[in-house]
Every structure is written in C-alpha cells, then in structure tokens.
C-alpha cells in the first residue's frame, strides 16, 4: 500500500495552488486527488518515473490537458488565487500568463524575427515597428541567442540548430510576458552543451518567473530545483524544499527513487 504524505505546511508565497485535482484519460485516472502549492519565483521540479503523471500535471497548469480528446478534469488550479478552470476564464489569457517550453523545440513556420514577434503581435503588445524590433532584440538577448542570430533574423527559424531553436522558443515564450514558465523535459532532445545553455537561462530567470520543470533526470533536478514534487502512479508522494527532499526524504518511495532503485 502506498501511504501518501501530503505536504501540509503552507507555503508563504504560493503562485499556483492545486486543489483536489483529478484527471482522467477516458476512464483511466491519471492524476489522483492532487493538492499542492507551488512557490513564486523559484524553480519547482516535478520528478518521478515514466507514466507517473508529471507531464499530465504540468499540462493542467496551462490548460493543455483539454487538448487531448476524451479527457476529464475535476478540482481546481488557482493561479494568483483565481481558478483557471472557471467558466468565465479566457483560456488564451491563461496561456499568455503561463508559458510553455516543450520537449522538442517547434519553431513556427516563419523567420527567426517573426517567431519572437508572433506572440507580441497577437496580443497587441507593442505600438510600432521600432518597438517590435526592440522587443525582439530584448528577448533574444535574454534567451542568449542574439549574438548568434542578429545578422540572420530573416532566415527561416528551422535553419537554426536544435539547441538554438529551443532558445528561440524560450525567447518566443518570454516575449508574451508570462509570469510562469512550464518546462516539459525542455532539454531532453538537446545535446549536453545546449542543455547547459537552457539550464543556465532558467537559473538566471528564476528571480522574475515562477518556473516549473518536469524532468526524469535526477541530476538535472538537483542542479535546478529549489522546490521538489515527487510523483508516483498518478499520486503526489512528497513535496518540499529541494534540500530537505534530496537529503532527507520522508517517504519510502522517494528514498528508493533517489537511490535509483526504479
């Protein structure tokens, strides 16, 4: 039997609160009664073995879960105290506030420049061409890509290497000025150096953004995490500050996972 230890202690400054969340694919229960609070402006890492529901949980934060057909969700996800599943919530606003860095970079079918400008355009975030230009430059700099692409902004985004594409996707995501960044194994398709690039960007950005990363590599979790959520078979087993969970896991499953037993 699994004994679930819920993380009861209140977090001082929670950005996301999940309450009694259940998620179903068809009839199969993928998330079982999840209750968690995610701290503001820190990196939270969700870890656990394959199929434990970590990506599913992440997808509920930007309402991507509902893009899969035949799914159902009960419970609440509150961002800044507001339930994003309320009827009167505009899903495009949710996704503007909660950005996503996907597993594989998927640049839009346009130039490097337009990829970054796209989000600003659809949300009408700038007034004129000059402002758009400045915005694009600004976010490419933040993503650490400006130096490499400043002379080829009109080339197709697909002409970049995979690692550069992922940084472009980061710039593109930041350009719509989100408050939360979700990362669904954002370095798993990248080579080690590109992964390092992305990781160091995420560490730089954590002062301004609440970051939630799903990973299945324990080392990456240890490098990035301020706060850790451990999941197993759709249940939340343990959550807490990274130092505590890594050095002194309370639950047997977590201990076994950290020791690499499964």
């Amino acid at each position, binding site marked *: 039997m699994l004994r679930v230890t819920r993380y009861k202690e209140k977090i001082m400054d929670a950005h996301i609160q999940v309450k009694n969340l259940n998620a179903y694919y068809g009839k199969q229960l993928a998330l079982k009664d999840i209750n968690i609070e995610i701290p503001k402006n820190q990196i939270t890492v969700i870890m656990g073995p394959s199929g434990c529901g970590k990506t599913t949980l992440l997808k509920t934060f930007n309402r*991507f879960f509902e893009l899969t057909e035949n799914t159902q969700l009960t419970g609440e996800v509150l961002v800044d105290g507001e339930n994003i599943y309320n009827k009167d919530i505009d899903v495009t606003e949710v996704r503007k506030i909660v950005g996503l860095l996907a597993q594989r970079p998927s640049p839009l079918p346009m130039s490097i420049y337009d990829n970054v400008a*796209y989000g600003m355009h659809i949300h009408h975030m700038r007034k004129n061409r000059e402002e758009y230009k400045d915005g694009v430059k600004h976010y490419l700099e933040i993503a650490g890509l400006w130096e490499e692409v400043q002379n080829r902004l009109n080339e197709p985004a697909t002409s970049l290497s995979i690692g550069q594409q992922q940084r472009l996707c980061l710039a593109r995501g930041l350009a719509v000025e989100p408050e939360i960044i979700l990362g669904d194994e954002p370095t798993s398709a990248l080579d080690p150096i590109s992964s390092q690039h992305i990781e160091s960007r995420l560490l730089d950005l954590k002062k301004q953004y609440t970051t939630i990363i799903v990973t299945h590599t324990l080392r990456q979790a240890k490098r990035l995490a301020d706060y850790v959520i451990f999941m197993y078979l759709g249940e939340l087993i343990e959550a807490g500050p990274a130092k505590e969970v890594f050095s002194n896991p309370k639950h047997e499953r977590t201990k076994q996972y950290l020791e690499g037993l499964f």
Partner: protein
Amino acid sequence: MMKKKHFERRHLVELLMKTIMRIALIIVASSLGLILWTIISRGLPSLTWDMVTQIPKGGYYMGKEGGILNAIIGSIYLASGGTLIAIILSLPIALYLQAYAQDSKWGDYVRLSLDVLWGIPSIVYGAFGFALMIMLGMRASLLAGIIALALVELPIMTRAMDEVIRRMPKDLEHAALALGSTKFEVAVRVVTRQMLPGIITGVLLAFGRGIGDVASVLFTAGYTDRIPTSLMNPTASLPLAVFFQLGSPYPEVRERGYAAALILTIIVLFVSFASRWLASRLSKYSVK
C-alpha cells in the same frame, strides 16, 4: 548457402508483380505521351499567330479564318473567376474543419457531403445553374458560367486543402496555442503559412478541372464569337471551342480544334509549373 534460389516461389511472385507494375506504368506513361503527341502533331500545324490573337471569322463551326482568342480569354475568365470564388469559400471551410471540427462527427458529415458533391457529374451542376438562371431571368453569361464552375471546383478544392491541412504537425499547432493564440489565429497565421504549398496545389487541381470542364459551362456561359466585356455577356470557352470545331464538316476547322486543345494543354501546363515554382518559393519558412 546464400546464393539466390531462382525458382523459389517468393522470388517468382516478386518478379511477376514487379512486371505487372512496370507494365501498368508503361501503359499510363505511353498513353500520356500518345495524347500529347496527337495534340501536338495535329494541332501544331494550325497553331498560327492568328489563332491566339484574333477572334473567329465566319463562325466557330464553319470558320476557317481568324483565331480563338474569344475562347482563350473566355476560358481564363471563367476558370479564374470560378477558382477565385471557390477559394473564398473553400479555405474557410478547410480551416474550420481543422480548427473546430477536427475529428468530430460534424466534421465527418461535412467531409462526406463534400465527397458526394465531388462525385456529382458536372453536367448536373450545369443543369442546376441553368435552372437557377431561368428562375432569376438571366441569360447565358460569364457570371453564370463562373458560378457553375465555382460549384464544380468547390468540393475538389476543399477536400484537397483539407487533406493537406490535416497533415499539419500537432506540435506546431500546440506551440502557437501555448503562446495564447486563439484557434482562429493558429489557422490563419500558422496553418496557412505552413501548408501554403499544399493549399496552392489544391487550388491548381481545381483550376485544372475548371478550365477543362465542358458540361457545366455549356448552358450557363453559352458560346459566342466575341470577347466578353461584361459579366453579363455570354462567353466562349476552350473546351467548347474544341468540341464545336471537331464537329465541323471541314477538315481545316477540325485541325483548328486540335490547335485549340493544344492551347488548352499549354495553359494548364503553364499554370501547374508556375504554381510549383510559387509553392517552392513560399515553402521557404515551412517547418519540415
């Protein structure tokens, strides 16, 4: 041990099948060649400068002089107009199917009805257009021809676009949604860009069908020796020019019919190469 066993059954079957496929390929390729050769060898001698720059002298059925500029211009007007109307209606339908009715029952019904429309012979569209004209008290005209052709082209174009747009990578759609796009923005700004080459192919397919269609324009556009100057004029078309001229008792006029067929073929080839070129230019930004 690893030497080929020539008389093993599997190898014989493979050889047989390969031969059948090759024969089929040769039949198709040579009939295409034969068609082109017939048109060129019989049409080229009559394909004079006059043919493409003048209107017929002495009527399309009997006339041995002048050209078929009326039919060339008429066909281009008819097919372009029909294609334009079909695009205006097809693209929204195809995008709607992708964005809002992807794999729903409703989407299936729409696709089924488009397939049924595709299967309807074009003479039926012609008859429908004709009935409509009588109801509205219209005469055979360019406008009526364009509308009939648009109806013929619509299902072909929509289904071709739909099949292309369905192959849109999900990742790309999700990437745009993750930035807070509405489904409409995804459709217009991302899907159409990514799938532009395929969409153009769909348009071309419909244009080709439209410019070659006889039955739908027979009653609706009519036929005339003059070049249309308004949407309400009757309009000649190349397929009908071929039809009438080949039915002429004079061999010289029949030869002119082949020249008209050659012109029609050249126009279709030109449009298809031009759109290929355009599609490859426009696919520069597409995600492979």
